[in-house]
């Protein structure tokens, strides 16, 4: 099925008009993980000097396809050729040897090592790793960083770098290895809009030097503006390859999702928040549900993660906390849920101090939680859907008393919730670990919203979900708000913030640095705040804290 002849035939069909072979061509790639076919016979090629956007929803197969290109996975069938020459990539070494460099969505950097050590990790070499070797690498990287204007100090341990710097470190690594094909997986996902704007011209510069750039994203606006060609994947299959000039965001959205969808849901970069999905609601900011003052906390490595956070959430109000990951949101989430102890400050729920209370008590006080990591913190994968739905209330009637459990009540509840929250699965006895991301999140939400809530903490609620699930989640949050629940939404997705927030706070380096009312929500200003630049910053100059200044 994948003989040399067919490989060459596939390659021949992707030869450009000028008659040269593309930098890399992938042909009829198939990859299965157990019962799931992640990539189903996809053709994909990139030419030298081109920026090629790879577009698709979460779960469409883009990352898997590129992981195959980087040698992280072996395709079940299909071929890969470089400049017309078929190649087999057994591991990332082979891929790097062929000139493939990858900047992953979740950075593949070891936090406890320096940037230089991280690069050395992937290098082949002698047994000994002397200080001289390390410093030589450090210097080489420094030179490379200057050459490409990446502004990364390779001697710094990765855990000290900001998210944007970490990404630049990954790019540095790829460029140091003289990547001829540079793949970036959701590069702007972890960047402030400002940093994103700086990244894209850099990519252009690299393309100008004949590097082939692949740009994986689900952001339509980026792809339309900054690429030379766009390939759309859906459900693991290749749907279309077009030129940006020949298409529109609306068409791309339709290709991505397979049907017409509201453009807000797929993130067309709407600069003003859409009003269309807002149900009628109680005027926000009535009674204060949550008041946080001077909250301080440390992160897992002992560093100070929260530097004195002040904020409040009113009844029937959605307060969003925007900000790039790594600025304290995770720690804030943990402190508010009760998993992490604050070192200073207070948390007050409806006038009652809950700073020292544990998670169980906070839940009984009326806090609901949609945790950011649904598999680690949301669900117990080896328990059934029904069991997961009652995990927080198993001792309460009707599900159980002191010494009994009512299996019938659990089952009934499960059927009700599955109906109400459209969990499309056959039986409630199904194990939670077998569900798709969307269904798993529905369970988490079902459990959280099926209590009497005063305050809901929703952390990255639609992360990794396809459009349908995302719309569902937003609808649920809206409905809860309409019932008077105060909602604290932690999100790195600005579209989500724009769609839902009554107020938006921006977190940067463990502090709330800006606050915007609904009418003030504006991409550029929020973006600047996410990067630490605010109106009242002229005096403080946060920039001095950061290594290097924005350009």
């Amino acid at each position: 099925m994948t003989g040399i002849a067919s490989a060459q035939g596939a390659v021949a069909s992707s030869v450009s008009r000028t008659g040269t072979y593309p930098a890399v061509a992938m042909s009829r790639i198939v990859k299965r993980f157990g019962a799931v076919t992640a990539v189903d016979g996809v053709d994909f090629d990139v030419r030298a000097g081109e920026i090629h956007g790879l577009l698709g929803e979460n779960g469409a197969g883009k990352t898997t396809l590129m992981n195959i290109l980087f040698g992280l996975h072996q395709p079940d069938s299909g071929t890969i050729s470089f400049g017309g020459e078929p190649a087999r990539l057994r591991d990332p070494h082979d891929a790097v040897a062929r000139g493939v460099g990858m900047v992953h969505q979740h950075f593949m950097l070891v936090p406890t090592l320096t940037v230089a050590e991280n690069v050395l990790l992937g290098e082949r070499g002698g047994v000994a790793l002397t200080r001289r070797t390390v410093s030589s690498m450090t210097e080489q990287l420094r030179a490379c960083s200057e050459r490409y204007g990446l502004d990364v100090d390779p001697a710094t341990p990765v855990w000290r770098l900001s998210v944007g710097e970490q990404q630049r470190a990954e790019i540095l690594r790829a460029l140091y290895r003289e990547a001829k094909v540079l793949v970036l997986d959701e590069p702007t996902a972890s960047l402030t809009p400002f940093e994103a704007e700086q990244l894209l011209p850099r990519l252009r510069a690299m393309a100008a030097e004949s590097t082939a750039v692949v740009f994986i994203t689900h952001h339509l606006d980026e792809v339309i503006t900054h690429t030379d060609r766009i390939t759309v994947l859906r459900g693991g299959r290749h749907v279309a390859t077009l030129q940006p000039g020949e298409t529109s965001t609306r068409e791309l959205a339709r290709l991505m999702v397979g049907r017409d969808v509201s453009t807000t849901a797929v993130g067309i970069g709407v600069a003003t928040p859409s009003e269309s999905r807002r149900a009628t609601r109680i005027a926000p900011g009535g009674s204060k549900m949550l008041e946080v003052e001077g909250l301080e906390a440390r992160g897992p490595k002992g560093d100070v993660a929260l530097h004195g956070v002040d904020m409040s959430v009113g009844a029937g109000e959605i307060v969003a906390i925007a900000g790039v990951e790594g600025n304290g949101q995770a720690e804030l989430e943990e402190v508010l849920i009760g998993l992490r102890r604050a070192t200073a400050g207070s948390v007050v729920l409806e006038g009652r101090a809950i700073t020292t209370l544990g998670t169980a008590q906070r839940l009984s006080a009326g806090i609901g939680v949609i945790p950011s990591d649904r598999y680690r913190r949301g669900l117990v994968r080896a328990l059934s859907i029904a069991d997961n739905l009652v995990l927080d209330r198993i001792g309460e009637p009707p599900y159980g008393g002191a010494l009994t459990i009512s299996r019938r009540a659990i089952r009934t509840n499960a059927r009700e919730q599955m109906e109400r929250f459209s969990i499309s699965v056959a039986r409630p006895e199904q194990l939670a670990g077998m569900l798709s991301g969307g269904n798993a999140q529905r369970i988490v939400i079902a459990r959280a919203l099926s209590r009497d809530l005063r305050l809901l903490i929703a952390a990255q609620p639609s992360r990794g979900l396809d459009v349908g699930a995302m719309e569902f989640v937003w609808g649920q949050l809206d409905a809860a708000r309409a019932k008077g629940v105060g909602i604290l939404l932690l999100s790195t997705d600005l579209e989500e913030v724009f769609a839902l927030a009554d107020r938006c706070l921006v977190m940067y380096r463990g502090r709330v640095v800006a606050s915007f009312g609904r009418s003030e929500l504006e991409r550029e200003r929020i973006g600047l705040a996410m990067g630490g630049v605010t109106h009242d910053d002229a005096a403080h100059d946060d920039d001095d804290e950061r290594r290097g200044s924005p350009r």
Partner: protein
Amino acid sequence: MTSIDVGAPVPATTAWQGYARAVTVWLGAALVAFALGGILVLIAGGSPVDSLRAMFQGALGSVFSVGQLLVLAIPLLVIGLGLAVAFRGRVYNIGAEGQLFMGALAGGALLLTIDGDGRLMIGLALVAGTVGGALWGAIVGVLRARWGVNEVISSLLLTYIALFIFGWAIRRPFGDPSAGNNLASRPIPEDTLLGTLPDLFVHYGLFVAIALVPIVGYVMARTPFGFRVRAMGLNLAATEVAGVRTGRLVIWLMLVSGGLAGLAGIIQVVGIEGRLDAGISQSYGFTAIVVALLGRLNAFGVLLAALFIAFLNAGGQAMSVEEGLPYSIVLAIQGVFVLLVLVADRFSRV
């Protein structure tokens, strides 16, 4: 150790398939273990067939020997049940041996210092033993819940400490001068000894042990406590976020498993030894770990496993006397068996 293995394969089975697999795994491992035992017997210079016969004969040959088998099974069962509960919650209590001795000490001390009606004193001693073991176990639980201290290491260290405390106690305050070199305490009053079943020569502790099986089974399967314990063992973080007080649960699990170990200890005192000495346990606390694992952490399984291990040990003793083979063959078989079950279990989960 708060790491979560999010990627572990989720068993795609119904309950019945799970049982069927468990039985197959068991039988397969048992066959291999016996085969290996046969090889070991050959190595030791004996005859496998004769040894096997001696084993069965010795363990089940007469009413008396069956009784002895049951006597052996009692502490394994009681402790094993407690460990099964704790292990379900991923609280790895390896210190049951120490909790056993502390329970025995607590109950024995009561009996040796206070006089009273025999029956009453037995009852009080059983309670004291359970409490003693529970508190000793609770130390481990608190250390883990409060400070995140690894319970495997701490429970083991406390076992060594418990053994030293026990050794001192039977030497000094409760010592029996006439015991000579064998360290032992004074004997407990006659009327505080447990009676025995007439024909079987098994002490009444048997009823306690048997009664515990359905109790533990029920608690694990049909109470909120059991539900939470299972959830916690599968995913600690998610269970915490769902509002379960996992710290408290950890301490409870140590109280329960320590308490049951202590109960087993005092039962050994009033049921068999009649005094405090080293003979109240033959590594029951450690063997019970094997029992719990073999029983796949559920009550009925633990019952079967306890009987099986008791059979191996009792039969092994008989075999070693009859055939002149080292008793430690049994220990070796046990060790291999538990290893095999572990491996086979993993393969049965695909």
